[in-house]
């Protein structure tokens, strides 16, 4: 099967994630969309790895997973602390500093 289809899928997933970040309003959903973007990157990396016949891309995919896990730890900590003090995870409510 032609690996290029996987690249199209990766680009599609990345776009869905990016659109989600821009459109959705709940911080948790935004965050899930960012994770979708990272996983789209993983798919692209692994596909390119297969096309080039070297392992660099697959190794990077592992690093991406670790980084995404670290990001979850930090991100959920921040989002949960905001939720506990405001009882809302909507990014529209976060407007204390508007000009």
């Amino acid at each position, binding site marked *: 099967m032609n690996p290029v289809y996987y*690249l199209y899928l*990766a680009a599609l997933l*990345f776009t869905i*994630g*990016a659109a989600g*970040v821009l459109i959705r309003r709940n*911080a948790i959903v*935004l*965050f899930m969309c*960012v994770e979708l*973007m*990272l996983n*789209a*990157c993983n798919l*692209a*990396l692994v*596909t*390119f790895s297969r*096309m*080039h*016949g*070297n392992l*660099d*891309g697959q*190794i*990077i995919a592992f*690093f*991406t997973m670790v*980084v995404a896990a*670290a*990001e979850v730890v*930090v*991100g959920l*900590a*921040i*989002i949960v*602390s*905001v939720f*506990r*003090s*405001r009882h809302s995870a909507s*990014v529209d409510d*976060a407007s*204390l*500093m508007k*000009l």
Partner: protein
Amino acid sequence: MSATAVHSLWTMAGGVTSTAPVEKFKAPVIEYTQLAPVLIVIGVAVVGVLVEAFVPRRARYYTQVFLTVVALAAAFAAVVGLAAGGYGTTKAHIAAMGAIAIDGPTLFLQGTILLTSLVAVFTFAERRLDPAAHGKHVVDSFAAQAASVPGSDSEKAAVRAGFTTTEVFPLVLFSVAGMLVFPAANDLLTLFVALEVFSLPLYLLCAVARRKRLMSQEAAVKYFLLGAFSSAFLLFGIALLYGYAGSVSYATIANVVNGSVTQIDPALADTMGNDALLLIGGAMILTGLLFKVGAVPFHMWTPDVYQGAPTPVTGFMAAATKVAAFGALLRLLYVVLPGLAWDWRPVMWAVAIITMLGGAIVAITQTDIKRLLAYSSIAHAGFILAGVIATTPDGISSVLFYLGAYSFVTVGAFAVVTLVRDAGGEATHLSKWAGLGRRSPLVAAVFAVFLLAFAGIPLTSGFSGKFAVFKAAADGGAGGLVVVGVISSAIAAFFYIRVIVLMFFSEPKADGPTVAVPSPLTMTTIAVGVAVTLVLGLAPQYFLDLASQAGVFVR
């Protein structure tokens, strides 16, 4: 059955008796001494985490401050040692199996990052600004207990018990370690990991202010979501460039971009012909880096994060992040994508112009001193981009010099902001600063020096830096950028001077803020800031020479 026969069952599974010599596993060669600055900082950061776990609460503060200062000073000594050993010039090379470049820009930027962080850490350690706030307890800039809900009983209990967030010191060290690797990264994977290593601690540091905690948490959430969004772009760009060149090493990608690659296998021939991979990939990586730099289409986070974060963190972040991110941007554009210069130069021209003008113009309307400094930092990012676009050796060295000069001014200016306080913590609204020059002439005069340096008035470091950058840009064929740069400097000078006028020539209000008398820690920060500003303004030649010696990338 004899032992050797059993053994042969394993080694010759399937009855295949191969006589070919087994290829030996090659252990990677890591030049530990040349990575010493990074290793020292990471090592002490890990020790700092252990200190949080095992040292009794009352001893933690002194232990952490001591460890942090020693680590940063030792790492700086290591950088100086490497530079003295010629690793910045003649012995510049690629270390750690191609992951890290040890060369002039790396060492210069690492030295700058370590010195600014060292100076900034003193403001983190300051505990005397707010002595009357909570009775007998010492109070620093960070929440008593970051996990407690603002205004809740658990927060009050934590404050009463005198808790402090000493975790900020290991977090700063982790962040500094990432920043040290970021401008040295010589492959795209190292670039991405270093970016995350320095960003994640910064997101947390933004969320732990003692006063105005809702604002601080909001700043952290914005910084985190936008930062994660931009690093996803960077990663997709990395994937596309890897797809284009079949490698993540800077040198290999540069060769493929130039077309000077020797071995072309069919897969590479296939992807090399696809310019869309290269152009979109390069653009997405640039997006990620320009976000960290705070250049205009990607600057939205800057004012909110600078305003909401605890002021010592803002100073550290504004100075050190910018140095690291510009280092990585320089290396990417000068080492990986010089073959693409005709494509990225027009884009960077546009970005530089709207960054300079946008930052300067929007800053005029600001009424909060931290937001004002944030927009000023955006304008400065534009000035530095003008030097980056020069694509000459002078361009590199002028950017290095500008970053060194700018970072000390920034740390000093935000340290002064921590001193002007009222009942609600720091008084950041500009109206509160009216008449400050009458009330406390020294603080106002020091702040005026920093503002003049931001504005680029002669005899300050800002002037030398701006002159070097604009000269490099003009010589590099970017004369139009210099014109825009001078115009936006004039616009920027207007609001800097306006603050000075406000401080010295208006009547102080009756309910105005008080100026805290800091401990020697913050005094050191401010004194170093003023000293560097004046020395680089009055006698910049030595440092300009240093920067121009350092301004050669190893390939």
